[in-house]
């Protein structure tokens, strides 16, 4: 029920968006992310027809970067 899936925004019309979820097009409301500057091409997390968060790809990279040393360290981090 708390399931949310990432979708790519392909079209925006007011606070409605068309999103591509793994090749399937769906409508989603942008009402809950109106302050997150969502644009076409962005990825958002969609829950029961509402985008609830914009996904920041750079953060995904930054986390991997931060952990790459810790994870492979032989001694204590």
């Amino acid at each position, binding site marked *: *029920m*708390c*399931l*949310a899936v990432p979708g790519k925004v392909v079209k925006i019309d007011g606070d409605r968006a068309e999103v591509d979820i793994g090749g399937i097009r769906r409508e989603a*409301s942008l*009402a*809950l*992310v*109106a*302050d*997150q500057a969502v644009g076409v091409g962005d990825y958002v*997390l969609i*829950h*029961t*027809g*509402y985008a*609830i*968060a*914009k*996904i*920041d*790809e750079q*953060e*995904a990279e*930054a*986390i*991997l970067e931060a*952990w790459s040393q*810790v*994870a*492979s*360290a032989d001694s*204590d*981090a």
Partner: protein
Amino acid sequence: MLARYRDRGLVRTVAERVAQVTAGSPLRIMHVCGTHEWAITHNGLRELLPRNVEVVAGPGCPVCVTPGGEIDAICGLALSGKAVVTTFGDVLRVPGANRSLAEAKASGADIRVVYGVSDAVRMASEEPERDFVHFSIGFETTAPTAAIEIMRFPPRNFSIFSSHKLIPPAMEYLLRSGAAIDGFICPGHVSTIIGAKAYEGLAKEYSKPMAVAGFEPLDIMLAILSIALQRKRGVAQVYNEYARAVRYLGNELALRAMETVFVAADAEWRGIGKIPGSGLKLREEYSDFDACVKHGMGTVGGGGMPQGCSCGEVLLGSLRPEECPLFGGECRPDRPVGPCMVSLEGTCAIAFKYSGLRGRR
């Protein structure tokens, strides 16, 4: 973008680090999210962890903790013909004390499955001559969607029955009751709304390391490593591993909508009991959209756990589904006894789905 988060080799490396860092001392981590349970089981993450590290599922399935009394009340309303009931598909087969919504539907009640609350609002505007009640279930991920619809003043023949629940009060309840938990993996989607900040007070007060995690195998393994490292260093913070979707303060717009429409109230968690401040009820200003007021449904309590079902212990992480005497025999997804076997997010349903594929530890 996420390929590396699924890289088995990386996940294994991180699991080995967890083994090094914990060095054989027991570490019991709880998560409170059905999707985390699914990801952990589906990816066989428990098998990668050293034996001293245990990851248990807590009350992370909103459908599973919905009291039987509420299901009965909703069935009663639908059967009376006073209103059309809309709800999520997951809820349909959950047994109440008397019957499930699916059974009520089979007896002729007008109960419709919706994908989201906006579908329910649309149905209500298309059929103005009928009353619609949306059985609104879910944690902080879902509550803002109901809030935003109500703030936009839906048609007057629409109301909701709020069974929404909040995660941090449930975590606090578990910690307060002295449950054997060394740290928490915080739920990723709930956290997109409430932010990593929401857990800081708990981490500090109860000295429990926590990590907000996403749903790829590496996300979860990194969260476990973070918790292990924090414990080793003697700190208890909230590490935000899922920063690609979770902001420190969460989704402020969604939080404001929730705050505008709802107020926290004590709530009954099926199989667990009453947890202070863990539910959401509609504020008085919005009572026109409150099914309890409109249809005089009153307070409907009572957990109503089916006879012999151990869901309560499963939800508290004190019993693995396989340890329930009914698991896989009397209780299976095609004929569930307890709520944890119904929802796709139920710990028992997930365990059943994968029990044949993987050896138990």
